C-alpha cells in the first residue's frame, strides 16, 4: 500500500504544485531517486514519512494533504481509471458506499500481493453511515475521506463527511440527488 500512496502523493505534488516543489520534497527527505514506483515495495511507514515532508514543504497540515490526494485520485482527468473502478461499485452513492466492503477483495483480484486494509461499513441510521478502516498507514483514513468527498460529487450526492476517532469516518447523505451525476459508461470505447 505504501507504494500506491507514495505514487499518488508524487502525482499530486507534481501535477498540482510542480517539479520544483517535488524536488524540494525529495531533497529534504534525502531521496536519491525522485520517483516512486507503484509496483515496487517500500518500507512500511515510508508514505507517512514522505507526507510529513510534503506537509512541511507546502506549509499545510498532513491531514489536508492526504485528503487532497484522495480528491486528486478521483478528479484528475489523467487518472480517470481510479474514478471508473470506484464507479463500478454501484448506480447510486449509497450502493457505492456499500460496495466499499468489497473493495479490498476487488483490489486483490488485480494485485494479489496488495496488502489492502479491511473496510467495514455500517448503516447506522437513515442516510447515515460509519466507515471503519484499520490500517497501519496513518494517512489512509484521510485519503478515504478525500475519495468519498470526490465520489459524492461524481454521483451528484450532497454529503457531510466527518473523520472521527478510531479510524471511523461518519458519512451523512443530506441529498441523494443534489446534482446531476457525472456520466459513466460501463465499457470504455475500444482502443
Amino acid at each position, binding site marked *: 500500500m505504501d507504494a500506491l500512496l507514495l505514487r499518488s502523493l508524487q502525482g499530486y505534488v507534481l501535477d498540482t504544485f510542480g517539479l520544483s516543489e517535488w524536488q524540494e520534497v525529495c531533497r529534504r527527505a534525502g531521496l536519491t531517486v525522485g520517483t516512486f514506483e507503484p509496483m515496487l515495495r517500500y518500507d512500511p511507514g515510508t508514505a507517512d514519512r514522505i507526507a510529513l515532508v510534503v506537509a512541511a514543504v507546502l506549509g499545510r497540515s498532513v491531514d489536508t494533504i492526504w485528503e487532497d490526494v484522495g480528491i486528486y485520485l478521483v478528479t484528475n482527468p489523467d487518472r480517470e*481509471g481510479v474514478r471508473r473502478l470506484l464507479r463500478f461499485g454501484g448506480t447510486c452513492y449509497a450502493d457505492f458506499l456499500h460496495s466499499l466492503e468489497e473493495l479490498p477483495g476487488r483490489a486483490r483480484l488485480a494485485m494479489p500481493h496488495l496488502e489492502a486494509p479491511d473496510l467495514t461499513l455500517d448503516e447506522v441510521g437513515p442516510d447515515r453511515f460509519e466507515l471503519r478502516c484499520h490500517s497501519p498507514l496513518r494517512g489512509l483514513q484521510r485519503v478515504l475521506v478525500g475519495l468519498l468527498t470526490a465520489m459524492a460529487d461524481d454521483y451528484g450526492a450532497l454529503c457531510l463527511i466527518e473523520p472521527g476517532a478510531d479510524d471511523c469516518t461518519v458519512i451523512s447523505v443530506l441529498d441523494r440527488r443534489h446534482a446531476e451525476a457525472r456520466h459513466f459508461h*460501463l465499457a470504455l470505447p475500444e482502443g
Partner: protein
Amino acid sequence: MQADVPAHRIELDGAALARFMPMHLLLDAEGRALSFGPTLAQVLRDTAVPGSRFEELFEVRSPGGAVTIGEVLARGGNRFRLVPRNGVKAGLRGLGQRLGPQGAILLNLSFGIDLISAVRELALTDADFAANELAMELLYLAEANAAVTRELRGLNLRLEGARMAAEEEAMTDPLTGLRNRRAADLVLERMCAARTGFGLLHMDLDYFKAVNDTLGHAAGDFVLETVGRILREQVRAEDCAARIGGDEFVVIVAGRSDPKTLQAIADRIIARISRPIEVRGGTASIGIARSTDFAVPDATQLLASADRALYAAKHAGRGRAVLLGAGE
C-alpha cells in the same frame, strides 16, 4: 447439480421473471417467442418480436447440427451456445428447459467472454444485469488488469532505461568519454571469438609525465580530454577507442587487417596529436598488432604483440607507429 429439490410449485409473473432473468426467452412448445427479458430485447433489437421462431432469431453454435430449440434441448441436454442472427457480435450461452411435458420452454441466456464488447456495443448499464450476476466484477477486473499491466509496462521501460544508462556508465571513461579498459577487453574478446580480421593499436603519449609534472594535473587532464576528442573523431562507429590506463589508449579497428591501412590510421592519429594544442601534449607512439598474425586470435597475445610494437616505436625515437611482422 441435481440436489434434492423440494417439490414446491411456484409461479412467477412476467415482471418477476424479467427482474430475476433479464436475458430470458420464453417460447411456446413449438419454439415461437412468447416474451423476452429486457436485456435480451436490447440484444435482439428489432428482431425481438413475439411470435418469431427461435431459429429465425439465433444461429446455434453448439450443440453442432441443431437448428430448432427442440433439437437443441434434445441433443445438448440443457446447455447451448448461440449467436443472434441480427449481426450483434455477442456470443450467448445459456440453459433451457421445458416447463412441463407439453408446456412452454424457458431459456436463460448470458454473455460469455463477449460481455465487454456487448456492453460497449449495446451501451448496457448496471441496471441491465441482475444484482447477483458477476458482470460488474468481470468489467471491473478487465479494467483493473489493464491498469496494472500498463503500470508494469511503464516500470519495465523505466528500469530498462536505467539499466542501459548504468551499463553505459560502467563502460565509459569519465574523463575522456572514451570506452574504458573493461569495455575494450569485452570488445577484444568478442572480436577474437568472431575470428574476423581486425587491427589493434596500442598508443601511449610521449612525455605525458613531464606535462603532468611541470604544468600540473589540470593541464594533464586537458591533454587527455583533447586526445579523447581526437580519437573519437578518427574512429568509425564500429571501431572501439578506449583509455585503458593513465596515458595509455587502445583503438580496435574493426574489419581492417591490411598493414598499410592500419599504418595510415596510426600515422593520422599521431599527426593530429602532434599538432600544437593550447597545451603542448607532445607526441604519441603507437604499436600495431593484427588479428590475422595469429592462427587463433587471442586477446592476451594480441595485446602483448601490440605492446612489443609500441616498445619498438619508443625505442626507434618516439612519435611514430610501428607494426611488427608475425613472429617478431
